[in-house]
């Protein structure tokens, strides 16, 4: 914990911004640089900054959930996204897609694509996010 008024004031804003940016990176990852790994890392960096400025305990309060639980939930989501394909007769981890509002006659109109792949990527995001915070917070509290 560092006693710097500027840092403490700035981290609230910075953490929020980084979190928002991480979700942006997660969602755009399928078509542009980004994705679950990068998103998760950025999100975790935001909270690591928060932890440096305000201490581990405040970070835990801000997180609301135990980071290791977040990681496990992420792993569960990723697994569920993979198993999901089995219900449609595909092999595990085969992507399933819906094109909400797409015009079937126009092959280029994909509407709003929603997919099990996105769910899988969200799982990856949560795993990376949760795992890193588990480590950093535990280490920070120990020291």
């Amino acid at each position, binding site marked *: 914990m560092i006693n710097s008024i500027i840092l403490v004031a700035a981290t609230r804003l910075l953490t929020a911004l980084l979190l928002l940016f991480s979700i942006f990176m997660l969602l755009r*990852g399928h078509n542009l640089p980004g994705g679950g790994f990068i998103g998760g890392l950025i999100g975790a960096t935001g909270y690591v900054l928060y932890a440096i400025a305000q201490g581990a305990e405040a970070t835990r309060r801000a997180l609301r959930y135990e980071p290791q639980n977040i990681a496990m939930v992420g792993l569960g989501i990723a697994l569920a996204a993979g198993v999901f394909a089995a219900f449609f007769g595909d092999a595990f981890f085969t992507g399933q897609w819906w094109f909400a509002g797409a015009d079937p006659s126009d092959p280029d109109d994909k509407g709003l694509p929603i997919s099990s792949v996105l769910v899988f990527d969200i799982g*990856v995001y949560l795993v990376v996010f949760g*795992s890193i915070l588990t480590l950093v917070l535990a280490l920070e509290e120990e020291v």
Partner: protein
Amino acid sequence: MAKTGAEVPRVYGGPAGWISVAIPAAIFAFMLQFVAPVAAGQPVLLGLDWVPSMDIRLSVLIDGLSLTFALLISGIGMLVTLYSTKYLGTHPEYPRFVLFLMLFMVGMLGLVLADNLIALFVFWEITTISSYLLIGFSSDEAKSRRSALQALLVTGTGGLALLAGMILLGNVAGSFELSVILQQGDAIRAHPLYVPIVILFLAGAFTKSAQFPFHFWLPNAMAAPTPVSAYLHSATMVKGGVYLMARMNPALGETDLWFWALVIAGGFTTVFASILAVRQTDIKQVLAYTTLMALGALTLFIGAGTADAIKGMMTFLVVHSLYKAALFLMIGIVDHETGTRDVDTLRGLGRKMPLTFLGGAIAALSMAGIPPLVGFIGKEFLYKAGLGLDTASLWVTGCIFAASALMFVAAGISVLRPFTGKLAPTPQAPHEGPWAMWIGPLLLGAFSLGFGLFPDTIEAWLVAPGTWAVYGDYGYSVDLYLFREVNAAFLLSLATFATGAVLYAVHRPMRDRLGRLFEANPIKFDPGWDRVLDGLKALAAWQTNILQSGVLQRYIFTIFLTLAVGIGATLWARDVLNFSVDWTGDLDGLLFKHWAVLIFITSGAILTALTSSRMTAIAALGVVGIGVALIFIMFSAPDVAITQLLVETLVVVLVAVAMLKLPHLGLAKDRGRRPVHAALAGTVGVLVTLVMVAVLQGDIDRRITDYFEVASWPEAYGRNIVNVILVDFRAIDTFGEIAVVVIAALAAYALLRGTRYGAPADKEEDRT
């Protein structure tokens, strides 16, 4: 029986017991449906692909041989599990016992039904392992543990040899399917690898079926609870080796090597074992050695290999399973109700335990080969086959005659003595066992009697189809009968009875004489085994002392030295360094930024290695990390570059946090070894560079990348190919990777939050 803990009240073993009886009963009923088609000469072949790319199929071959075994396994299994509900049903570890027994049964059924060699091997090993667990069931007794380990090591070593033999055979025959291999007998026998294949297969079969000189583990295996002895070490598992030899007979048999190996080993085992049988005083040990005798006889007649010999072998196989399981169950009841198995203590139990006596008596009469029991038929046809041999007829007939006469004595020792005469005091007051225990011997006895009176039934259902399968000729007409005429075999039978009766009359002085004789014999297998094991342990300790120094530095040194030698030798042997390097092409178009990054990384790495200040080291590491990220950016890997930068940031944060509590690096104390370390490090570095240059000189195979590029948008609807690979094409790999990340985080968390041990001063107390 282990007397660990209090007994648990269970009605017939509780649910575990009921299920354990129901499963073999259901399998037995299921297998019965195949009797009719198999008896008509129609083997059933079922299959399911398992690992198709490696020609491993879960295929099932049901012919006369496998069906006979399957019926024996499930039928006797049913009686044994029923018996166990009372024998062990209140034992605290009974559910575990049932689990092992069921595991064994599945393994044994798989072993005899599998049509694929690899599947057969897997089931073979399952029986080995479950046998180990069952022999060592009374794990609080050192003797049990020793016997279990001995059985595991002997049969396990044989199993390894068998695996090697199977792989050779599969390559020679071009298939691992038994149904294919068995058609290619002539090609296999003519192949140069035939001799090693036979030796390896026989190593597996002889260890499993306890043939001389691997016989010593089987009597020791009697440390297991009696139902296990009855089931595994008499009726089923030890016959696994016999099954294998019988099964492979059409493919590997009919050669001089096969003939003499089996005839000599089998004949020797059968005589040797029956002599040892009559010198025992523990009835269970008597039965153990008679089992060895039976296994030897079966081996002997598979080796003899004529149609008559195979017929005799199949008959004797069924006969022996019926009477020997009954006898083991009988001695189990006696042990359970009187507390002893000593032949000199037990007298006159017949009036106290009439039903047990009846079951045991029928089995003993069958073992002695007295008509009209099926044991008589079994012995008659063995004599007939032995007399009909062209070669070694005298040896085979002689061995089986000696063994049969001694069997007659063993039958007397194990039933006649304990049950007749005047009641003698025993540790517990004798009384009849519960129905679940005596029903087994009685039912088995009924079969022994029924098959003896109506030999056509056993002939049509089991012996004829089995003989066809083993002999490989479905045209051979099998005929079994109790008595037709007075011939040489019948006269031999009469001679057997006479000899047996005389020997029984003098068996007690003979036992003492034999005991002294064996004491004087310098070659002892069991202590010999201990010496072999001690030698192995000494060898292991010796090499552990050399390899496992416990010093991290030495481990790392060995690892990298091995790496350097391995890579260096490969590069040299393959002569891959013969290329001209195109430096000008490589340096073409290099800008200042490229040089800057290269110099940054190189100097950062060197600085990290040489500095004695940890802050400098961390900063230098940061330089390397950022430099690597720059390389990723310059060469079109934005995703990787972002990841690298973020991870680099987190590494620095973590190290900085940890450093607050860690000491300074200080100067290394081992200055003397530094030049050696530097030399090794330099060598590894140069070799890595050489390998990489060699790789870069070759052509790149972009097929997978091309596929991803073409399929990414049309099939996976993603324009960022890297991310599509991660979350779609190779999602299952990614899943594994994030699982690793979670595990690493949880492990670190547990380390930090877990119990904190004391300082080094009081660690001794923590360890005790």
